[in-house]
C-alpha cells in the first residue's frame, strides 16, 4: 500500500483520538497549584514554570489581581514611596507560562488532592504550595475585631488599610496622640512595627511637632531595638514613649467607639490607634488542616514540605520552620528550595542541598537605614541560623545612607524576582 496524504491524515487523527483518552491526558503533565501570590507564592509559581521549562502545569491562585507589597509599605507611610510603587500585577508571571487565577481559594481536599475556589471551580493538583501569609487571631487585643479595623487599622496587610492609616495620621489634631499596639511573637516582619513608629515620627516631626507617639508593646525586647532606640533619641527626641510589659504593655484593651485605650486599667484617649494583633497562618492553611495548635504550619527544614502531608508545601509567614523570621525575603528564599524539591519529585531534576537566607532593612529617618540578616541551613529539627550580622549603633552617615540605597536596590531586585 502506498500511503497517500489522506490516508496519512486519517492515521494521524486516530492516533490523536487515542492520546486524547482522559486517563492518558491526566498523566501528561504533573500539576502544581500555588495558593497566594506574595513573596513566597509568586516566586514559587514563577520559578516552577521557568525552571521546569514547560514540564509542569503551574497554576497560581491569588485573590487580588494587583498585589501590594507589605515590605516598603512603611516607607509609603513615611512619604518616601508612592503607593503605586508598591503595586505589582501578575502579567509577567502569566507570560512565564503560569495560569493565573484571580479568585479566593476556599477549600482544600487533601485526600482528593483538589482545591476549591470561591466560585465553585475545582482544581486538581499533584503538589500544592500554600503561601497564604498571615491572618489575625481573634481576641488577641480585647475590644478589637476585624470590624474595628476601619476605625483602628492594623495596616499589616498592605492595601486600603495602609492608605487609611496614612490618612488618619495626616488628619491628627496638633499635639494629638498616635498609639500603636504592637503584636506578640511570632509575627510578620519583626522590625516592621518599629520601622513604622520611625516613619510616623518622621511625618509628625514636620507636620505635627507637638504630637506624641505611644508604643504599647507586650514584648520584653524586639528586633534591632538598640538601633531604633538610638535613632529615635537622635531624630525624634521626646516624641516616642514605649510601654513595655513591665508597665502593662501586655495588658491592653481598646475601645474603638470612643477611641480609647486601656493600659493596665488606665484609660487614655488617643487620636490614631494602629492595632497590630497576634497572628497565625493565613486561613486556608487551617482549612487545609496543615496547621498546629499554635496556628502555624510545621514544615520539614530541608524542603518546606508540610509535616502533615507529603504533597503539600508551605512557604513564608504561614510556615513554622525554625529560626527564619517571617519576612518577604525569607519567603522568597524558601520558595526556591521548595521549587527545587517539587521539580525533583515530579520531573526527576537534580536536587541540591537547601540553603536559606534573609536580610531585613529598616529606615529610621531620611538616609538612616539599618539592616539585620542571617544565613540558614536545615537541621533534622528545624531551619537553623548558621551566621548573622546586624548594623551597629554609631555607624557614620555615609554607611547608613548606603544601607538605605541598598534597600531600594533590594526592593527592585526582589520584586523583579517575584513578578518577572
Amino acid at each position: 500500500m502506498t500511503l497517500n496524504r489522506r490516508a496519512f491524515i486519517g492515521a494521524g487523527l486516530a492516533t490523536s483520538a487515542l492520546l486524547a483518552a482522559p486517563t492518558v491526558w491526566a498523566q501528561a503533565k504533573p500539576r502544581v497549584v500555588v495558593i497566594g501570590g506574595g513573596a513566597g507564592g509568586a516566586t514559587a509559581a514563577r520559578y516552577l514554570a521557568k525552571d521546569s521549562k514547560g514540564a509542569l502545569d503551574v497554576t497560581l491562585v491569588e485573590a487580588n489581581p494587583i498585589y501590594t507589597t507589605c515590605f516598603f509599605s512603611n516607607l509609603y507611610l513615611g512619604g518616601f514611596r508612592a503607593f503605586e510603587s508598591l503595586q505589582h500585577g501578575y502579567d509577567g508571571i502569566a507570560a512565564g507560562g503560569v495560569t493565573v487565577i484571580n479568585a479566593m481559594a476556599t477549600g482544600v481536599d487533601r485526600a482528593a488532592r483538589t482545591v476549591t475556589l470561591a466560585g465553585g471551580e475545582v482544581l486538581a493538583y499533584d503538589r500544592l504550595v500554600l503561601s497564604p501569609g498571615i491572618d489575625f487571631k481573634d481576641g488577641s487585643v480585647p475590644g478589637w475585631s476585624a470590624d474595628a479595623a476601619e476605625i483602628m487599622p492594623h495596616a499589616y496587610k498592605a492595601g486600603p488599610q495602609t492608605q487609611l492609616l496614612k490618612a488618619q495620621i495626616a488628619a491628627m489634631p496638633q499635639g494629638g496622640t498616635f498609639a500603636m499596639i504592637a503584636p506578640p511573637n511570632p509575627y510578620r516582619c519583626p522590625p516592621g512595627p518599629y520601622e513604622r513608629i520611625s516613619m510616623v515620627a518622621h511625618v509628625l516631626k514636620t507636620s505635627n511637632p507637638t504630637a506624641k507617639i505611644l508604643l504599647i508593646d507586650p514584648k520584653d525586647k524586639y528586633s534591632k531595638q538598640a538601633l531604633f532606640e538610638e535613632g529615635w533619641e537622635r531624630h525624634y527626641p521626646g516624641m516616642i514613649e514605649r510601654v513595655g510589659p513591665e508597665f502593662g504593655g501586655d495588658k491592653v484593651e481598646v475601645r474603638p467607639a470612643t477611641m480609647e485605650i486601656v493600659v493596665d486599667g488606665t484609660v487614655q484617649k488617643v487620636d490614631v490607634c494602629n492595632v497590630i494583633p497576634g497572628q497565625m497562618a493565613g486561613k486556608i492553611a487551617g482549612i487545609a488542616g496543615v496547621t498546629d495548635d499554635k496556628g502555624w504550619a510545621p514544615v520539614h527544614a530541608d524542603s518546606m514540605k508540610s509535616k502533615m502531608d507529603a504533597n503539600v508545601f508551605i512557604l513564608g509567614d504561614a510556615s513554622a520552620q525554625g529560626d527564619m523570621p517571617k519576612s518577604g525575603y525569607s519567603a522568597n528564599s524558601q520558595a526556591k528550595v521548595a521549587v527545587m524539591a517539587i521539580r525533583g519529585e515530579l520531573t526527576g531534576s537534580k536536587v541540591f542541598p537547601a540553603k536559606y537566607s534573609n536580610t531585613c532593612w529598616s529606615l529610621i529617618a531620611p538616609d538612616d537605614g539599618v539592616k539585620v540578616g542571617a544565613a540558614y541551613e536545615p537541621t533534622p529539627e528545624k531551619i537553623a541560623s548558621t551566621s548573622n550580622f546586624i548594623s551597629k549603633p554609631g555607624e557614620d552617615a555615609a554607611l547608613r545612607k548606603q544601607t538605605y540605597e541598598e534597600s531600594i536596590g533590594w526592593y527592585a531586585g526582589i520584586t523583579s524576582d517575584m513578578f518577572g
Partner: protein
Amino acid sequence: MTRRLVLAGVILGLLLPQALMAADLIGDAEKGEVIYRRCSGCHEVGAGADNGIGPELNGIFGRAAASEKHGYAYSKGLKRMGADGLIWEFATLDAYIENPKALVSGTRMNFPGLKNPQDRADVLAYLRSFSDMPQNIPESSPTAFAPEVTLPPEVLAIVGDRDYGEYLASECLTCHQTDGDNDGIPAIIGWPTEDFVIAMHAYKRQIRPHPVMQMMATRLSDEEIAAVAAYFATLQ
C-alpha cells in the same frame, strides 16, 4: 563631511558646555587617587595593570574609545561610539564618568557616576598621571593594583557546575537583578569568571567589607563559588 566626522562633531557639540565648565577646574591627583578607589574594583592602572572587569586605564588620554588593539571585550555600545570617532580626552572622559550610560547607551560600565565636577576633575588628574602628556599635573608614582586575594591556581582552575550555579544563583537574585540594573545594588552579570571568583573569595576572607556578601560567600565552598561564577558569566 563623512558620517564619522558629523557624529564626532555632534558629540563634541553636546559636550562643549560641560567641557568649558570643567576646564575651569584644576584637578588634584592626590585627592583623585582616593576617589579612584571607587573605580579600582573594575579598572587597573599603573605598572603591570591589566584588563579585568573593565579595561586597564594606562594611557587612556588620547586613546580611541573601544580601541581594538587594547584587547578588551568592549560592549557593542562602546564599539559603536569608538567607530563613530569618540576619543578619550578630558571633556569626553568627564562626561562619561559623570554618567556612563548617558554618553554611551549600552555600555557595560555599571557606575552611577560622579556628580561633583571637582571629584571628576580630581580623578581625571590622577588618571592623567598614567598617560603620555601629564600637562600641569604633578607626577605621582604609578600604583599597581594587586588582586584583592591571591588564589591558588587549583582554585581558579575549578570548572563550575552551571546547573548547580543556577540554583545557588537564585539566592543572589533576591537582590541582584538579571537585567543588570545597578540601582543601590551592583550588577553582577557578565563578569569574567575569574574576577567573580576572586571577588567572592575576597568576601569569604572578609577582605571586602560588605556584611551581607561576607555572609553569603562564607558558606559557599570553592566549588560552589565556581558554580555561581559559571552561571552568572553566561548572563548578558
